[in-house]
Structures are given as structure tokens and as C-alpha cells.
């Protein structure tokens, strides 16, 4: 009665074949991550020291530390976040909570998708034209951060929109039926439940902004500066550009230095990611439906 037919056996073989195939594909994903991290740690760990993290570059950038670049990257990313998060979240709230589905919102959506597809070097040139020259900010942190902010705006808008959309419609209706306005509903019920999702978008933005080189190259990041920026109108060094410089532009750099810079760069991104993930998990645990 339960004897396997030829067909059953064949199905079983195919089943295990596909299962193995998909497993191998999944494991292949981990491989590049392991290789990158492994190479960086093996070749770059020897460069990391207290002096490397908190010292200034010396001897034509062939020795010394990366402190100005580290601080500069933090400046650039923070100012970019200050601009893009409020702007992106507000736009997403308007699109998802206020605007209906019409030609106007369709055009805006198209614009967002196109903005996301613009290569970063084009953003850089736009930044030079708009912020450095037209608005007269010069090559400064402000110009570079604004360029970065515009580049990452689509990520913030799309992820915020998705997380607003995930809040059930019934919650809004219950609130409206109580006599709440749209804004009261958004503030008290919709936004608090969308925050974990919004944070995911911000994580993605931070990671991308930290690593971008092209948009800041012409707008605010400098080859070498012996001092730290004091305001958003100063130029600054940045980790990503510094990595580019020490790997290609400067002769006689010891082998482990560029790898050390890359390791710090990746470490920074990973640190910020894990902080945000922890925060998101904490917030998720508090709110449930």
C-alpha cells in the first residue's frame, strides 16, 4: 500500500537535488562577506593602533593616523542625516497619508525612482553646480552633506513609505471615527508603529553615505588637511576619500595602511548598523499587534 512507485522515487531525488542547490546558492552569499572581512583583518589589523585612530597623517600620508578623516566622515554623515531624514520622512508621510492616487503623486513617484537611479558621480557634478557654485557654499561640509542627502533621499522616502503602509488601515479608521484629525492619527498611532521600519531606512542610508566617495570628492572632502573642521563651512578629510588617496594617489605607502583604513571604514558601518538594529529590536519588542 505504501510502496514507493518509480515516480515517487524520482520526485524524491529531484526534491533533494533542488534543496541542495538552493542551500549552496545561499552559502555562496556568505562567501564574499567572509573573504572581504578576512582579507581586511589579515592585511589591515597590524595597522590599527591607538595612534592610527587618533593621530594625524605624517610623512606625506605614508605614516601616522587617520583621525581627521574619521572625524570628517562623522561630520558628513551627521549633517547629511539631519537634512535627509526630516525631509524624507515628511515627504513619505505626505505621499502615504495625505495625497491620493493621482497624476501628481505618480509624477513624484517617478521622480523618486529616477533619483534613486542617478549615478553618484552625476550627483557629485550636480552638487558642485548647485551647492558649491550657485548657493555659494564653496567646497565645504555643508555642500558635500547636501549632495549626500539628496542622493540618499529616495532610500529614506521609500523605506518610510513602506513602513507607514504596513500599519493597518483599521487603526487609522478607528482613530478618525473618534474625531481625530489626520495629523493626530499620524502622530499618536501611525508614526510610533512605523519607527522601526523608518530606522531600517536610516541604517541603509548611513551605510551608503559613509562609503560614498564620488559625491564628496568635488564638493567638500579634501586630500589632506592638518586640522579638524570647526563648522559646516569648512572643508574636511573623509575616510572613503582617504582610502582612495592612500591606495592610488600617494607613493610609498606601506601595504597595511590602506587595509587598515578600509577596516576602520567597514567597522564604523558595522558598528552603526548593529546599534540601529539593536534599537529597532528594542522598539519592536515594545509595540505589538
Amino acid at each position, binding site marked *: 500500500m505504501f510502496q514507493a512507485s518509480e515516480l515517487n522515487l524520482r520526485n524524491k531525488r529531484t526534491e533533494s537535488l533542488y534543496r541542495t542547490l538552493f542551500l549552496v546558492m545561499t552559502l555562496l552569499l556568505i562567501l564574499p562577506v567572509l573573504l572581504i572581512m578576512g582579507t581586511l583583518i589579515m592585511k589591515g589589523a597590524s595597522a590599527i593602533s591607538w595612534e592610527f585612530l587618533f593621530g594625524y597623517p605624517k610623512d606625506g600620508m605614508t605614516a601616522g593616523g587617520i583621525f581627521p578623516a574619521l572625524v570628517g566622515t562623522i561630520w558628513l554623515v551627521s549633517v547629511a542625516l539631519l537634512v535627509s531624514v526630516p525631509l524624507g520622512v515628511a515627504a513619505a508621510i505626505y505621499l502615504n497619508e495625505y495625497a491620493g492616487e493621482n497624476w501628481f503623486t505618480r509624477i513624484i513617484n517617478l521622480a523618486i525612482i529616477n533619483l534613486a537611479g542617478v549615478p553618484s558621480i552625476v550627483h557629485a557634478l550636480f552638487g558642485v553646480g548647485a551647492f558649491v557654485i550657485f548657493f555659494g557654499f564653496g567646497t565645504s561640509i555643508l555642500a558635500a552633506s547636501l549632495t549626500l542627502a539628496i542622493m540618499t533621499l529616495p532610500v529614506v522616502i521609500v523605506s518610510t513609505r513602506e513602513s507607514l503602509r504596513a500599519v493597518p488601515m483599521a487603526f487609522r479608521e478607528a482613530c478618525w*471615527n473618534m474625531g481625530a484629525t489626520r495629523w*493626530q492619527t499620524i502622530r*499618536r*498611532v501611525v508614526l510610533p508603529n512605523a519607527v522601526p521600519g523608518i530606522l531600517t531606512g536610516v541604517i541603509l542610508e548611513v551605510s551608503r553615505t559613509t562609503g560614498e566617495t564620488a559625491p564628496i570628492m568635488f564638493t567638500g572632502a579634501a586630500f589632506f588637511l592638518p586640522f579638524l573642521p570647526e563648522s559646516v563651512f569648512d572643508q574636511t578629510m573623509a575616510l572613503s576619500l582617504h582610502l582612495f588617496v592612500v591606495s592610488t594617489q600617494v607613493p610609498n605607502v606601506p601595504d597595511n595602511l590602506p587595509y587598515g583604513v578600509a577596516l576602520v571604514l567597514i567597522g564604523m558601518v558595522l558598528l552603526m548598523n548593529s546599534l540601529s538594529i539593536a534599537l529597532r529590536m528594542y522598539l519592536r519588542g515594545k509595540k505589538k499587534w
Partner: protein
Amino acid sequence: MVSAATAVMGGNGTESAAPKIAVRDVTIRYGGTPALSGVSLDVREHEVFGIIGPANAGKTSFLKALNRMDMFTDGMKVEGSIEFNGRPIDRLRNVYALRSRIGVVFPLPVGLPLTIYENVALAPRLGGMRNKAELDDIVERCLIRAALWDEVKDRLNSLGSLLSGGQQQRLTIARALSQQPDVLMLDEFSIAVDPVTTMRIEDVLKELKHELTIILVTNLVQQAQRLADRTAFFLEGECVEVGKTSDLFEGRVQDSRTGDYIEGKFG
């Protein structure tokens, strides 16, 4: 909140002769075809007004029209006139005050993802109340009236959305009551609730009837028979008839379709 709302509604609800809600020749459309057409009826103060009828009769659309939720519903158009306390609601400048005078309970309980306390305190807070003692008082009173206090008084700070279905439905009733409404509208509240809880909620409604006006949409004809003073029968977008519940259920109907539906011959 109360004073502002009363001023806007232009009455203190004492004119008992005038109907609480007067509906004249109301047609509701979504796009082209009407979901409900040509409805005229009165809801009187302090009565339980039942609305029975099968699915797609237009019952829920009717409730939405009463508190101007057409504003938030894409493509929904309401024609005809609806007066609340003698004021035409389509000309109100402050529809938010109208909505806060009408409490709504949905078919599936909607516990907002807030704590039990915050769920009930939300409406007063929206109205601008900040005083902790006053809020505490309202929360306790509303939960008691909704017959939920004894079950949740020790865990007011746990999430409302984690309560059982029947408890959540009583939570939504408490939330509706916290608006201090004149009218309570219930849309098939017992769909997701067990029979014992249903009976408890029905007892609550019998008590509330003395203080406010209740519109009860139900697809259980026996529930209308148990609770409603007067009952309207909706069928396929038409209000077939409105009559005293006892008349309808004792065979004194004007339209044979009403009798057939009540006897369970269809629907």
C-alpha cells in the same frame, strides 16, 4: 471638548420631540452604481435603532455616511440630507466634533497598539485633556460601563491589542464611551465574539440605552429582536421598511420581503 462640541452642534439634546438623526432621501455611491439609494428614516433619542439585512445591503455605508467618513473614503459620495440634532451634517465646519459625538464599534475589534489605559484615554487626550486624575477617572468609568474593568484593572499598562477578541471588543466599546458620545453605532459587533461575551455586551447596551442613542447594525435578526426598539430592514441598497421591532417580529410587516427575511426564508 464637551463644551466646544456642544456649541458646534448647536443643541444640548433636550428637544426630545425632534429626531436625534433625520435622514432624508440619502443615496450613497461608490463611483457609478449606488450602494444605497433613497433612504429616509429618523433615529429618535434614547432608542436602540436596529438595522438588519444581508450582506451588501448598504448597512455599513449608511453608518459611514452618518459620521461623514465619506471624507476619508476614496470615491464615496453621499447625496440627500442628514441632520444630527437638527443640524445638516454636510454643512458642518467642524466634522471632527461631529465624529467625537458618535462612538463607533467595528465588526472586528480594533485594539489600537497602545496600552489598555492609552486606548481608553486616547479620545479625551485628542480633545485636549491633560489632567492625570481626570483621565484616570474616565478610563475607570468607561471600562466599568463596558464590563471590562474587573478583568483588566490590574494590567492597564499592558497592550490592548493582546487581549482576547471578546475583551478587545469591550475595550473598543469603552473607547467609544470615552468620547462621551450622544450616539453609539455598532456594526455587527458580535461577529468575532463568543456567545457569552455577546450576551454580556448586550446587557451593557441595555444599560447604556438610558444615557445615549444606539444604532445597532446586525445580521442576527434575533439580536435586533432582543435589543432594538425600532428596526429598519435594508436589502440590496434599499431601505425596505422601518417599524417597531415588535410589529416586524410578530408578522405585522408592510413588505413581504421583510417577513421572509425575518423568518429566515433567505439571507
